[in-house]
């Protein structure tokens, strides 16, 4: 199956003529997002995430390289009818919520009773149905983000591109959005999710990519990244806490981390010491740890 979103060796630089120091936003950046997945797009500020999204939507052009969205080159207007987008700092016109959603739906050439019906549906989805007649100008930031999501969903998109969709939401709203994303995935939609909320990404994304310095520094299935193949967590009972390096005693058991290659040897040693193996599992790491591993060198460089 062809990728839904594909960046091919894309380079993008800002400034540099007479105005300011050139900034390399993307440096031969390549990525493929498959149909039906929720893809987490991570990276520190200035890593090039938003630039990549803006290129995909045709807001700007790449200096080098090319990209395809739903099989068509970036910037193709007809293709965007099948795409939904929520910008990082959502900016919308001030008018009643229902009218606003209908306006954006109309821009995708939707109309009539179908559009009005769809408008009601998406306002329900983002929990804004009671505020349908309220002017968006009086909305809180969290409500703005939700109405932004509603306008992104109004055309029932095949691909949903979200740039920080939950940053201003309270925990309840976050759960609603998370469930909504999973539901969209269940319907076969593809979600491209850029976020700093790593715990959210960890919960919903099938794959994640970590951007760093305009390049993709890490890419993989979320489960693979979170569960290390190289290291295992061993929990044993009846052994001394100092028997293995890094051992921690808690609730009558001792836990410690080992390399997967030494697993057999370690287990035999536990038995030889008269102990009992409670569990051996691949070491679970958080997305935050992975994120820091990728970006730490940069942080250290900045610190220096």
């Amino acid at each position, binding site marked *: 199956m062809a990728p839904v979103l594909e960046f091919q060796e894309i380079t993008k630089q*800002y400034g540099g003529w007479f105005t300011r120091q050139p900034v390399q936003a993307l440096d031969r950046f390549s990525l493929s997002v498959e149909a039906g997945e929720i893809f987490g797009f991570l990276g520190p500020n200035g890593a090039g995430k*938003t*630039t990549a999204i*803006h290129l995909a*939507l*045709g*807001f*700007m*052009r790449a200096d080098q390289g090319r990209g395809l969205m739903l099989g068509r080159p970036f910037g193709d*207007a*007809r*293709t*965007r*009818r099948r*795409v939904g*987008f929520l*910008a990082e*700092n*959502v*900016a*919308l*016109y001030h*008018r009643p919520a229902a009218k606003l959603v209908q*306006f*954006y739906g*109309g*821009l*995708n*050439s939707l*109309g009539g009773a179908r559009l009005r019906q769809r408008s009601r549906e998406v306002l329900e989805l983002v929990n804004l149905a009671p505020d349908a007649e309220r002017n968006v100008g009086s909305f809180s930031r969290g409500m703005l983000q939700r109405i*932004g999501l509603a*306008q*992104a969903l109004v*055309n029932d998109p095949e691909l949903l591109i979200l740039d920080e969709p939950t940053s201003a939401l309270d925990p309840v709203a976050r759960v609603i959005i998370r469930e909504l994303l999973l539901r969209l995935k269940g319907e076969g939609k593809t979600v491209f999710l850029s976020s700093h909320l790593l715990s959210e990404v960890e919960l919903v994304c099938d794959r994640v990519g970590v951007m760093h310095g305009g390049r993709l520094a890490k890419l993989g299935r979320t489960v693979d990244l979170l569960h290390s193949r190289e290291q295992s967590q061993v929990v044993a009972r009846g052994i001394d806490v100092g028997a293995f390096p890094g051992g921690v005693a808690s609730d009558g058991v001792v836990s410690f981390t080992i390399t997967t290659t030494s697993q057999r040897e370690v287990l035999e040693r536990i038995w030889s010491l008269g102990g009992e193996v409670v569990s051996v599992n691949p070491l679970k790491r958080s997305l935050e740890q992975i994120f820091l591993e990728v970006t730490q060198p940069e942080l250290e460089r900045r610190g220096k």
Partner: protein
Amino acid sequence: MKPVWLIAGNFLREQRWPVVILLGWVVLLSVAAGFSDLRRTPEDVFMLFQQVAVYILVFSLFFGASAIRNELRTRRILAVLSKGISRRQYIAGLLLGIVMAIAIYCLALGMAGAWVLPQVGVPAMRFGLLLLGLGVASLLTACLALFFSIFLHPLLATGATLVIVGSPLLVEVVWNSSWAVLVPVYAILQGFLNLSQGATAFQGWLILLALGETALVWLVSAWLFSWKDVALAVE
């Protein structure tokens, strides 16, 4: 075509206050003229109508110069251009919005003129044709301003448009050349400015020339705008 109309309607909605203010001025003008002894003060009436005609042109200039910049500054353009519309449609929508604003002004001025001007010897038909010319001249002015605003600050775009629109006046005065009609805004507006000097021949070809130039500037603007990075913040 629907998205173009939606963008136009939205533009008009966003610019409702300038539209209402100039409309209020036209209404005020009509009321003032209605209560005065028109036959004794025809020159004052002509001056008021000429003044409003220039206002319409100036408002069109400002609408054109600020239309894109406002959207970029507020970043509202991102949600709009993320939909299934091309840059050409977007520019067309903005221009159609400006046309609608100009049409509202011209309609109001036309209604006032149809009531007042026949009393001072200007036939309604002649005034109607002058209004048509005014509308087209305003549209060309707005289109030029929109074109310059794609790559210039609105103030500079306004200045550049004034230079282009005003240069025929210089050409005519200094060189007395017929090239002055190349940008026919001034030539068309002259009909309005000579309102008191009796009937002048209706120069339909100037209006056609202005419409042709508007279409050309729109196409060039759309092409140029398709290269513009709309995601960069402008302040």
